[in-house]
């Protein structure tokens, strides 16, 4: 049987992939997707810890994380649409001015 350590290692690998995506990619949509990868990695470790402790708390926290992820995706995508209307680009390097 896989142990808690295996799940935590998998979660850490997924989180690192998400972080690398935020650092390396320069497309706003891919950056948001990388944030989703990170949130899922955290969810996995929450569920694994909840299973190891035999409590339902881990799963309940996952629901709240999913809610926050949904809100974040909705607002983030709305911001991306608003930015794209101004500059016709998804490259974050394009958006350097606070006022125009």
């Amino acid at each position: 049987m896989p142990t808690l350590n295996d799940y935590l290692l998998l979660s850490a690998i997924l989180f690192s992939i998400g972080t690398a995506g935020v650092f390396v990619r320069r497309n706003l949509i891919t950056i948001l997707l990388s944030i989703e990868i990170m949130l899922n990695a955290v969810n996995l470790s929450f569920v694994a810890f909840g299973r190891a402790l035999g409590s339902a708390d881990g799963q309940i926290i996952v629901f709240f994380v999913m809610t926050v992820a949904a809100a974040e995706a909705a607002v983030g995508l709305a911001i991306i649409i608003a930015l794209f209307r101004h500059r016709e680009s998804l490259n974050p390097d394009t958006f350097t001015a606070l006022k125009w």
Partner: protein
Amino acid sequence: MTLFYLFGAVAVIASLLVIAQRNPIYSVLLLIASFGALSGLYVLLDAPFVAVIQIIVYAGAIMVLFLFVVMLLNAPQEDTELDARVHPLMRPGAMRLGTVLAIGLIAELVWALTAINVSGSFPPGPVVSVTTIGRRLFTDYAFSFEVTSVLILVAMVGAVVMARHDPARGKR
């Protein structure tokens, strides 16, 4: 054990491909595959309700929202010519720093997690039922639940306001 490695490998490979694709549509579809593998891992962890919610909410709702925006903006290609020509590791100056930081973080996390060893396998226990989750959610976590509903309301209003077509400012 075999299933754990299967689902884990699918999740890791799909996530790697998500950040390696140039076309965001492929990224979104691969992320759905990654979420499916994670859902299988939740089943292995005796959390069937979370697994179902993962498919319905993440793959079904959030990813469709992403796909909708990608198709609405109709900008499938990655940004500038520099990105198309130059590998991320070969970019000039400070633009290389992101890749270096990412590699450093991965190395550090893997080192830390192989150095420690959380003991043993999971204790055998009853599967946490949907009844238990619902009862806890509406008693111990009732306040958090209500705050979450306010959060969703604020996010909904914010998304509508920010993505709204504003004729006063011109620009489509």
